């Protein structure tokens, strides 16, 4: 039980660090996938601990959500590349205050 949650926490932290550190937008999307899966893992572990199916059901929801997220993210990625000729997410910072 603890081991599963620790693994999920480590995965989540790795994903978060990836989102913050990597400037390439493809890696940002990958890191977000890792964070989502870490959250899904936590649900599954918690579900098995209480003997309930809810954790697995939530994981299926997360999978569906991740699929839509990736499709939107990839569309944004294409637009970004089209406009800036780069995959650096910091280049799109025109809306700074």
């Amino acid at each position, binding site marked *: 039980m603890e081991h599963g949650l620790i693994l999920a926490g480590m995965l989540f932290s790795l994903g978060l660090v990836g989102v913050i*550190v990597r400037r390439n937008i493809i890696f*940002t999307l990958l890191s977000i996938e890792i964070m989502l899966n870490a959250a899904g893992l936590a649900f599954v572990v918690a579900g098995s601990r209480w003997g309930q199916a809810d954790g697995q059901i939530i994981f299926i929801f997360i999978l569906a959500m991740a699929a839509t997220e990736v499709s939107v993210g990839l569309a944004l990625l294409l637009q970004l590349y089209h406009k800036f000729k780069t995959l650096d*997410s*910091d280049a799109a*910072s025109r*809306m*700074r*205050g």
Partner: protein
Amino acid sequence: MLELLWMIPFLPFAGFVILALFGHRIGDRMTAMIGAGSVGVSMVIAFVVGYNFLLSPPAGHSYTQALWTWMRIGSFSSGVSFYLDALSLIMVLVVTFVGFLIHLYSVEFMKEEQGYSRFFAYMNLFVGSMLTLVMADNLLLLYLGWEGVGLCSYLLIGFWYKDPANGRAAIKAFVVTRVGDASLAVSLFLLFTNLGTLNIQEIMGLASQRWTIGSGMAAAAAALLLGGAVGKSAQLPLQTWLPDAMAGPTPVSALIHAATMVTAGVYLIARTHVLFTLAPVVQTTVAVIGTATLLLASISALTQRDIKRVLAYSTISQIGYMFLALGVGAWSAAIFHFMTHAFFKALLFLGAGTVIMGLHNEHDMYKMGGLRKQLPIAFWSFLIGSASLSALPLVTAGFYSKDLILWQVWASDRGSILLWAGGLAGAFLTSVYTFRMLFLTFAGNATSQVARKPGPLMKIPLFTLAILSLIAGLVDIPNNLGNLPTFSEFLHSALPPAPMSHANPMIEGKLQFITSLLALIGIMFAYSIFVHSPQHTGRPEEIKRSPIAAAVHCFLFQGWNFDLLYDKFIVQPFVRVARFNKGDFIDFIYKGIAFVNRSFNRALSFTQSGKVRWYAAGLAIGAVILIGIAELL
């Protein structure tokens, strides 16, 4: 026919609106027709109304015409309604009649001036406001007219605005009278909070019911009203604006600064006479102010070089006589002197205008002289005006009104021999300075050529006013000369007679004799100095030989240095405080608020970097902090 009352102020206002909107398009001829015509028709209506009023006096000798409600807030309501009684009828007649004659004169006088239609627009606005002032049945409407005439006075003094000195004179007139206006406004507040109404007749009724003679509230209200009257009528200590107001065109000086507006203070006191009767201290102050002003102003008039400034000081001193009369309860004598003064002073100003126009805008009397042959019409009108101003016995209007004032000052229970002596000394000084002006301008050898002679439109007003300056006094013939006080008796329906319980009628003739004798001695005195031995004409270059005489002359020439006094003790400290507080310390609060907001804005806009990674980091840190807080608690 009394229903036509509303037309009297309406027509000049309509003339103003037309001239203000279309004045630049309709040409000079049409402008003159509308400008003078609107006042002329309103004069005719005023005479029709007056005739009907005399023929069949309405109930209570007063007629109120309510037009509409101006404003209604809670228990307070103020209407645009006009009140006609003997007092306001006389004011209306004089204002429209003298106003029309001066408009007629201006048609020719102001020809070839730039801003011809602007001039007539302002003049019409003035006549309309003045009529509103005298016909108002409540103090708020009166105040509206009061401010209206002040505005027109400002606009017309600064009519030739291209010379900055004229603009300064206009601002001075506006600011100095504003001191009085503020006092009048406060008295309105005081009367409303204490009596709950601003209707003049209701105030008079309630005041005599609720306040006893000598009560503090009545004294405060009367003193504040007096403050307003002193400002508008250029009495001590607010008289300094009137000599400078002569910067305006001469018809303006004749209409606004001699005949009508400056006597608004006299009207105000007469209109609210009940309050002054309830406050004997204030009423005595009125008389003292009047006496002091008439003496100071007539001494200053002796030293002036500018013909219009002589007339300005003379106006101040004649209004001093009216205040003196009001102060001893001789209400109708004051209004009588207002009427005759309007005639002869307008005549003198219009005559002076003819001279000034003839000599290419020359105002200095020492550069005139010998104009008797070249400008006979100006000379004769000036002679008649001067005779009336110096109250030459029996044949002039000024004699009857000034004599009535001096007699009632002597005889009234509220008068005193000191006030009478002041008035008498003023009468002597009046005839000296008046004939000094006449002799300097018209006697002696001709020194300059007259360029422009008056046409018929200028002669008619001069002629009419000259006749009135001679005969207008006959409406009130004193006790010992036939006893026909028609004018006073007519006014007694609106104003009580002077309290004269101990008067000895036998002495009236003796007093008249003394006054007349002094006026004649004054004329002889002026003659002996300025005509008989013209080497002692008091020319400035001769005065400069003796330092003391030069200093005294300079002191009097500048009107007893009141300007210097005010500059030292009011204007300069004010300017110093203003300069010290240039940044306005109250603004620090608001500036502080603005500064704090701007700093927050700068800090927050720094976080808005536009970089998604920073936002993600921000979210993560925020979540960690929140969870940490939740854990710790």
